[in-house]
């Protein structure tokens, strides 16, 4: 240790006396951790407070405190803080990994139990509480149809809206639209479900349904498209803004009108990014349960017609099977959940890969 003992006044407050610093030896952290665990075990089992989980938790707390005290004594306050926060950040990671890993593990281990042809080939029609078979074919059909219709409605509307905001909108009015698109992002899915329930199922559809409320897959698609719209608008907007100005100016200079420039030059350039946003919004919509529950009604039988009668969806199927009393329903619920997650993840991964290949970058 070459600590030069200069009087404190002669150097400014920020300057160290020496470059060398006293450090905790490399074995200090693991030794402290072991000690903390031992002490924690002693306390927990000595006073009979609880089990091994508590030992680990208390040990972690003791370790953090001990690390701070030890580092503070040897290395000084700044280094002690640095070590303390670093340890805290790492423990946050450990803390979060446990439940998330448990979710994934449960999903995979439970979900594979019913992963058979029957599950993908049959519906729940005429399946009683004592029947072990039955499947989610009808729910898969429902999910695909509803999400497909929702996409068909949302994509043109959302892309056009984004074009307005980026290319034509000026001043306060465009700002207002942007602001409310942002606000729309936060509307809960159940509220969009209630909206379509009130507006379509209870008020509009009785006109051509003999006065009866028309629960249908189409109604679910409407609710999902309200959910998807803000995501599509925002991501398209972001992508359009990334299109370099010279590209537009080049087209204008050739005498191409603005609308044609947008359709022929700007949109194709931004296309990969827009598709990424659309796929992410589809993934989100496919996993929604609440709106489908309210306006599509669910149902055990296969119904290919999204415009008439009840329809189910994968997410809703999971929820309904979770509520069944049959001892076979948990397996069906988990397998449907796994199917749903795989569907959503395939979309998400594809979207991310596409985003990575995007020429415009982020």
């Amino acid at each position: 240790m070459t600590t030069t003992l200069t009087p404190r006044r002669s150097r400014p407050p920020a300057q160290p006396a020496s470059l060398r610093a006293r450090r905790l030896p490399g074995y200090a952290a693991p030794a402290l951790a072991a000690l903390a665990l031992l002490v924690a075990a002693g306390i927990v089992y000595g006073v009979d407070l609880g089990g091994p989980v508590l030992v680990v938790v208390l040990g972690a707390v003791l370790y953090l405190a001990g690390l701070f005290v030890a580092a503070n004594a040897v290395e000084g306050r700044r280094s002690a803080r640095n070590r303390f926060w670093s340890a805290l950040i790492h423990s946050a990671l450990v803390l979060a990994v446990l439940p998330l890993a448990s979710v994934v593990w449960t999903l995979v281990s439970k979900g594979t139990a019913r992963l058979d042809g029957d599950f993908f080939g049959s519906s729940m029609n005429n399946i009683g509480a004592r029947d072990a078979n039955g499947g989610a074919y009808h729910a898969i059909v429902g999910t695909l149809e509803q999400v497909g219709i929702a996409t068909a409605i949302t994509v043109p509307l959302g892309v056009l809206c984004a074009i307005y905001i980026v290319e034509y909108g000026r001043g306060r009015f465009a700002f207002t639209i942007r602001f409310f698109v942002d606000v729309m992002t936060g509307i809960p899915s159940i509220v969009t479900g209630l909206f379509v329930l009130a507006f379509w199922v209870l008020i509009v559809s009785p006109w051509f349904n003999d006065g009866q409320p028309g629960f249908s897959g189409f109604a679910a698609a409407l609710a999902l498209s309200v959910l998807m719209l803000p995501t599509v608008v925002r991501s398209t907007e972001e992508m359009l803004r990334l299109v370099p100005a010279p590209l537009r100016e080049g087209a204008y200079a050739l005498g191409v009108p603005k609308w044609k420039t947008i359709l022929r030059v700007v949109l194709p350039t931004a296309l990969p990014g827009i598709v990424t946003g659309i796929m992410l919004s589809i993934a989100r919509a496919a996993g929604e349960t609440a709106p489908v529950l309210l306006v599509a009604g669910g149902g055990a039988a296969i119904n290919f017609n999204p415009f008439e009668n009840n329809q189910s969806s994968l997410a809703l199927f999971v929820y309904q099977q979770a509520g069944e009393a049959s001892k076979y329903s948990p397996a069906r619920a988990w397998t449907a959940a796994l199917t749903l997650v795989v569907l959503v993840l395939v979309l998400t991964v594809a979207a991310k890969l596409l985003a990575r290949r995007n020429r415009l970058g982020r």
Partner: protein
Amino acid sequence: MGETPHRSAHAGTGGHPVTLGHERSAGASARVAEAPVSPRTPDDDRGLGGGGGLPRARAFGAERAFRGVTLAAGVAVLVIIAAIAVFLIAKAVPALRANSANFWTFEGWFPNDDPPTFGIGALAFGTVLTALLALLVAVPVALGIALYLSHYAPRRLGTALGFVIDLLAAVPSVVFGLWGRDYLVGPVADLSAWLNRYFGWIPIFGDGPYGNSILLGSLVLAIMVLPIITSLSREVFLQTPTANEEAALALGATRWEMLRTAVLPYGRPGIIAAVMLGLGRALGETIALALTLGSTYAISFNILANGGNSIAANIANRFAEANETGRGALIASGLVLFAITLVVNITARAIIYRRREFTESAA
């Protein structure tokens, strides 16, 4: 900013009685009313093809038409927001009229009875309580992981884990709900018993029975919003200019001090946005809570005992049995939820917009 809600209300009232099928032309006519540009616009509202299909000689008209179509799409957003409010109110009012109990204070939900009685108090309380508890747990952990991924982990590991987190953020909530109901309930019951035994003198750790409690619901919500908040704030932290991080380091900052001086202040608006998005998700979450809460109608601060409820979970649980008034009552509760999330959202956006303007004008 002050004028914004007023304007939307104006645009909305123009469009609300029109059905969705006519929405675009409704939007277009609303636009014409506001700024009459082209008389041709309302004829042409069929999307891209409409604009492109016009003969070349009338390119000027095509330009106007295309512009009108995009404007109509923009207005549609305002129309939808207004329509949500209008239709929910239209269906909620009859049920609220029929309600013979105080909607705000009555603790119970019997809209199918005659006379119907139902109250939002306990539900709104449960909604806010579970969401806040969930954020209390999730936000510190999420920020910790985000910092780890952006500034502690080796770059490759950080990118890989970040990708996994992004995927987890996309997992549907019904999966978390199912997991919480089937697998988290046991450990949480044990934890509840332990908390009650040693900390029972704190009112929130009251007596059992333990099981589908507010604690369980909040923890499931926390685990659900954790990847969402992590993923967003990680992106925010990664956007910190390297120049600022290096400036802090060159002043002799430790890694934590660098995060404190350069990364966290710079990312604050983004963090607020991420937390608010998480709060919005937690407030509106339906299925995860429908599967894990005890579905009772009392305001209780005991987070350990069976019970708890939320507006969204109540809608999912009671929808199947609801009659005409029952549906109206549920829609009324949804309206309250809509209002809560709207207030949260608008507040958050206002904060972010103001912050963004500050940094942009400064840069």
